[in-house]
């Protein structure tokens, strides 16, 4: 997984990667040549007492050192760039993918986990890439080079070097195999840390109100302890790696002196070779330690790659239809906004009971269509089928005569303007939030939309008017203000279909009434669908749909329903009871 991902991402950077490899080879070769020349200094210089040669060889060594630093700097520059480019690309891909996912798909991962994956997990891969570039080229080159040079000095003695390699591989294999599951769990625990903290930030006031700080601290401590324990376990494993490797390598250098000493006595080997040999062993040790750093990072990065790939591999259930845009039968906008549901059923995958059960109705432009029903009866679900936030299980949803599934998503959503139930605002300014609907809207347009949404007064009272700051989620506004800003955002758009998902719930009656009055001109050209809890909100609706446990139990006007529908009568009665008119 990790390898595949790396190779895929690196494919674009082939020339640079090649340059890095070459530069690393140059610098590694230079590094290996230094002890060889040093051996020559001893064998040809010292033993023969040749001062000139010693100085000349010294000069060579200096030249090689200069080449080495140049190559190393170049390699460092390119590796930093490519490694960070990998991270950049992964984050970009992740973000693009997440944007194409539905709420369920996002929910399956969870917001905090997606965020962790795009930052922390990507960082791990980036860190590995840096190490790979600086070490994985140099380490094998140094290791293999060391072995080759050792062979060159004395074949028999090199047997020791060759013998230790399987031992080292075994040590690493055993440790890495244990590390992988630990790291996998570790990343999940980071998600959890993030999730608990996020909930604590969102719910800060509730936590304080119920004086549950200690409970929250405990809840966090449990996760925190888990992460700490996990990190400790992996750190302890990693800590064992170096000493084990050192024992093996150092003992082999002892062996070299022992066997080498005997070979020199026997006249099979030169004295300088022994010195060089020990230097090579050190070389190989360094190479192995370098490889070890990579190997310490690799398991975690591999786990992170899995997690990132899992997101990238998610096939969004809701995607553009296969037909090309040019193949669309009609002009840019759907002609008129007639919305039609034909025998629509929706059930969450795997759920037994359907949330919506065989719903059929037609909502036409020029009138308000209202949906009323008890909590959890499927009202919001029904609305969510229109922009294809959810996909029908069976049946058809049509806009302007086209099945929503046959329309390109951007085209479909362009023809809708939605006020969501959760009035979500982004951090920025009021104007920026409104312009999410229509980026090119003028300030006048914004003010007009605010006026219609009954939000002009309070926005004008803000110190900077429409340029006043909005905090994340809009928490610096009251619930009703947030709703009206979201309504203004939706009204800014000239759409054939407007959807209000229980968007008037936090408004007081006077505001509600004025707002509905202001909406009237809108209904002349567009279809308006409103989900509501209060009958007063929907009295004038041309069509009222009564939902009960996912079924459409009645439809008609207020007067008709008051006559025909017992469910509607109950709702009306409950509101009268709330009104205390008895």
């Amino acid at each position, binding site marked *: 997984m990790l390898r595949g991902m790396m190779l895929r991402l690196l494919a674009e950077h082939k020339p640079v990667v090649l340059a890095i490899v070459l530069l690393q080879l140059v610098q590694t070769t230079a590094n290996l040549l230094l002890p060889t020349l040093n051996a020559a200094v001893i064998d040809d210089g010292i033993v023969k007492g040749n001062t000139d040669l010693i100085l000349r060889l010294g000069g060579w060594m200096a030249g090689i050192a200069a080449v080495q630093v140049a190559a190393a700097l170049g390699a460092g520059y390119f590796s930093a760039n490519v490694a960070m480019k990998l991270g950049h690309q992964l984050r970009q891909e992740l973000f693009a993918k997440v944007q194409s996912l539905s709420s369920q798909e996002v929910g399956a991962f969870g917001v905090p986990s997606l965020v962790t994956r795009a930052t922390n997990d990507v960082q791990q891969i980036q860190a590995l890439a840096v190490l790979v570039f600086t070490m994985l080229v140099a380490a094998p080159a140094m290791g293999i080079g060391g072995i080759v040079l050792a062979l060159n000095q004395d074949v028999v003695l090199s047997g020791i070097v060759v013998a230790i390699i399987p031992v080292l591989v075994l040590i690493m294999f055993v440790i890495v195999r244990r590390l992988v599951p630990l790291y996998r769990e570790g990343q999940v625990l980071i998600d959890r840390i993030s999730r608990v903290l996020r909930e604590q930030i969102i719910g800060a006031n509730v936590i304080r109100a119920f004086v549950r700080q200690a409970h929250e601290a405990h809840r966090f401590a449990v996760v925190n302890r888990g992460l700490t324990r996990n990190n400790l376990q992996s750190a302890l494993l990693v800590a064992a790696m170096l000493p084990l490797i050192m024992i093996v390598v150092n003992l082999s250098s002892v062996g070299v002196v022992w066997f080498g000493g005997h070979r020199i006595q026997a006249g099979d080997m030169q004295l300088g070779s022994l010195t060089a040999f020990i230097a090579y062993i050190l070389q190989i040790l360094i190479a192995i330690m370098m490889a070890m750093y990579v190997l310490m990072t690799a398991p975690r990065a591999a786990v992170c790659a899995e997690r990132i790939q899992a997101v990238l591999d998610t096939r969004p259930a809701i995607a553009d239809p296969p037909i090309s845009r040019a193949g669309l039968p009609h002009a840019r906008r759907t002609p008129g906004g007639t919305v039609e549901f034909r025998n629509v059923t929706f059930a969450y995958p795997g759920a037994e009971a359907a949330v919506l059960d065989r719903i059929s109705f037609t909502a036409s432009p020029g009138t308000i269509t209202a949906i009323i029903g008890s909590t959890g009866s499927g009202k919001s679900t029904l609305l969510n089928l229109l922009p294809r936030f959810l996909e029908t299980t069976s049946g058809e949803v049509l806009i302007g005569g086209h099945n929503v599934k046959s329309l390109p998503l951007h085209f479909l959503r362009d023809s809708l303007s939605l006020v969501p139930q959760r009035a979500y605002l982004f951090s920025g300014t009021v104007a920026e939030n409104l312009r999410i609907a229509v980026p090119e809207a003028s300030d006048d347009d914004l003010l007009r939309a605010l006026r219609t949404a009954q939000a002009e007064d309070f926005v004008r009272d803000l110190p900077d008017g429409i340029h006043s700051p909005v905090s994340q989620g809009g928490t610096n506004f009251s619930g*009703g203000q947030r709703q009206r800003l979201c309504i203004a955002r939706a009204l800014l758009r000239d759409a054939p279909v407007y959807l209000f998902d229980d968007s008037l719930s936090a408004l007081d009656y006077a505001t509600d009434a004025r707002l509905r009055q202001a909406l009237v001109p809108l209904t002349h050209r567009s279809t308006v669908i409103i989900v509501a809890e209060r009958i007063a909100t929907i009295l004038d609706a041309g069509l009222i749909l009564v939902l009960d446990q996912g079924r459409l139990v009645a439809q008609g006007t207020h007067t008709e329903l008051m006559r025909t529908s017992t469910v509607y009568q109950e709702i009306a009665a409950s509101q009268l009871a709330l009104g205390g008119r008895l």
Partner: protein
Amino acid sequence: MSTATTTPTTAVAGAGAGAWAAGRRLLGLLRPVKWRMLAAVGATCAFVALNVSAPKLLGDATDVVVEGVFGGTFNEQQLAALLVIVAVMYIGASVFSWVQGAVTALAVQRVSYGLRAAVEDKLARLPSAHFDEQRRGDVLSRATNDVDNISQAMNQLLNQLILSVLMLLGALSMMLWLSPLLAVIALVTVPFSTVVTVLIARRSQAHFSEQWTTTGELNAHLEEYITGHEVLKAFGRQGMATEVFTNSNDRLFRTSARAQYVSGAVQPLLVFVSNLNYIAVAVVGALQVTTGAMTIGGVQAFIQFSRLFSQPIGQIGGMLTLIQSCVASAERVFALLDAPEIPRDGTGEDTAEADPPDAGPAEGGPTEGGVTAGRVVFDAVTFGYSRDVPVVKELSFTAEPGQTVAIVGHTGAGKTTMVNLLMRFYELDSGRITIDGEDITGRSRDELRSLIGMVLQDAWVFTGSIRENIEYGRPGASEADILEAAEATLVDHFVRALPDGYATVLGNDGDTLSQGQRQLITIARAHLAGRSILILDEATSSVDTRTEVQIRQAMQRLRRGRTSFVIAHRLSTVRDADLILVMDHGRIVEQGNHQQLLAANGHYGRLYAAQFAGGEETLRAPESGL
């Protein structure tokens, strides 16, 4: 301090001094584990001593071999004895190295645990206003990405830094012992290395600060856009989000690549310097042998030491990247920890808010709703979220024990603000609020809040089962009590239809439930809590009216004998209230009961008329006989 890191430019500007302070403070965190650290240093010393003297003995062994070549007598036993000693030393070195690694890991994990706990603890002490200014994703990034970075970096640093420094000293002393001349040559490199490191470090620190600040920013964008992704989709504005994201991502790429290669240049440069030194040692050593000042074995050992000497210098240089990155993250974590907190409670006793991990005086609150009668008085209360713009002005009223007080008025008139003040989420600018004659600032915040049950319009549920979410109101409540609360608030009705019932786990901000259902759960939570003062802020705005009627009956039972504050837009809910406060632009413009206010024919009269003009009278079912 907290705001300083939100913009990259200021972070970069203040990088130098802040980095030192953050570095020192980070080291300070190791103080509680100083004995362990000392043990680690001890183990490292032993390791270094062994590791450094072993090559010397190996050099002696080489000389034994040399003697055999030149002197003709090869003392095999002497060689064997020497090599056995070396082998034992190497094994010992590895054992100490392992001990050091393990002890360091323990210490570092303790520090990371402490940092994360401190961040969480801090969140509980930040004023509500802080969350209005700071984006969630950035705070989260500090607790995860930055702490993780610190933890990874410290682990490597403590392992290697101690080792490298000791190796350096060890090698140096051995070199001095073998040949002072060569040692001096080796030492010449130190000032060069230092200058190179300092020059580069100065440049790269700013990049690291920016890297982690940008990471936080990116995290914030991600968190925000993923949370609001449906809105972006609905308006086809993924492009805009992508643009903002790409912007940050590009900057993150540039700044992290720069940080990486600028600081990464240190190591090759130091290696170069030490290579030159190595060459000098080899050449000078060789010349010394030719003049007879040193033995070949001596030179061989020396060359090994000079490698041992130059290696740690290169390593320390290589660690610069880690150190700077670690310090940059530490700065961000400390900035959060240093953010201004809610003023401590005046009573002098420590409350849970000031010190959350130890249960405050009333974890979960007195289950019987405290001992207060519940007489609430607002006396000329003035407050604004920003000082110059008062949101409520000169509010005065009295709520008698057991009364229901309804607060009505246009959206944004200051109704929720009143609740925030009563709960002490915010502190008054002037005036005072008393409960049973006692100023609310006279109690600790937790004591105060333990008297009050609150249900907000934004129904907050956390990841956990429905049962746990209800139990939140009164920890340790019996199964029967939970069920009773759930039944009274009609939670039971829809929970029974769920396959897992009360064990159904709510995840992802509870989006498996409808908004109305989430509201019901929070009402059940408050019902279970059973406090003596009750606040309902638009608690049922998304609940259908048939359900609401039944809840209302339950709430009426609940409200009996309790002082309750109700914020609702339905005047119907308000009619039965003992006291109605009509608010407009932050002032109470009218107060009284329904009849009185209607008779006065003022604001309330108009609101009432507007509502019924809207039609509840026409709701009457002609044949239903209502």
